[in-house]
């Protein structure tokens, strides 16, 4: 038998499972399974509300032309305490001195959970010219 999961381990697992389902797979079902209906968004390219993440999964599955997809991030580690999980990722960034090349940088996401659901999110992203809320899913090829 495996040892019982701690609250920190459980919360980190929920966050990483959400990331796999919502961001990597664009699954509406994953949004409904992991995201609280009263989801508060501090990231700058989406407003608050679970329906905004449903909209994002539609964009991920059917990206319109010019859509900036969520960055590809590789897990470095999680730091969890009480109801909060911080995820540290490695993310390649364009090198300003060497056009066309990248270097490994880091990115952070922070989540607060309530009743086993993700209810609040912060990240370090910069604002784009068009937010995800303004985009509409592309036509299926």
């Amino acid at each position: 038998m495996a040892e019982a999961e701690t609250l920190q381990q459980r919360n980190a697992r929920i966050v990483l499972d959400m990331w796999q389902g919502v961001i990597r797979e664009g699954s509406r079902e994953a949004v409904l399974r992991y995201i609280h209906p009263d989801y508060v968004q501090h990231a700058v390219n989406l407003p608050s509300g679970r329906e905004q993440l449903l909209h994002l999964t539609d964009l991920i599955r059917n990206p319109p032309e010019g859509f900036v997809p969520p960055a590809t991030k590789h897990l470095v580690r999680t730091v969890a305490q009480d109801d909060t999980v911080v995820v540290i990722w490695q993310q390649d960034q364009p090198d300003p001195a060497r056009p066309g090349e990248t270097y490994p940088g880091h990115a952070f996401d922070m989540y607060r959970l309530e009743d086993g659901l993700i209810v609040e999110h912060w990240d370090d992203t910069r604002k784009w010219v068009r937010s995800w809320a303004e985009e509409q899913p592309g036509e299926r090829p």
Partner: protein
Amino acid sequence: MNTATQLVPGATVPEGQTPPMVAADHAQLLASADPVLAANKRLCYDMYRIVLQGGHAERAHEFIAEGYIQHNPNVVSGREALETFIRGSRPAREVRPTIELPLVSIVAERDMVTMAFVRTETGEDGETYHTSWFDLFRIEDGRIAEHWDPAIKSAAMLRTDPNTQRLD
């Protein structure tokens, strides 16, 4: 049990915009039932307050290991490089009892501490907006031994005083 840290608006913003939220109570952020986690949080908090906010490079040795590993792309590893960066980017100021930069959270687990801050940026349209900044610290033998942040390569960062990120 609701352990959420109370967040309060950190600045006034035009009507219709969401204000950046900061922690109301730093003592609550620093508290932990685990004395090791409480000490690790206090170490990182005081380093930020005295060295980064206060600009006191000469006190970095109280908090930071000599062989400090730096993952920020603009600063090389080692405490000496950090001291040089501090001296080159901000004046030494009076040490204040609290962090006056817009702190959102302190999260600690095992040998790790993260701190989150409100960060003010300017968009391509010239409008300012608020996003988040994070630091991750690894603590070893009572000193900060390793650091990660989301900085991107930028020559300007080497001259940037974090006190420009105060709100209001």
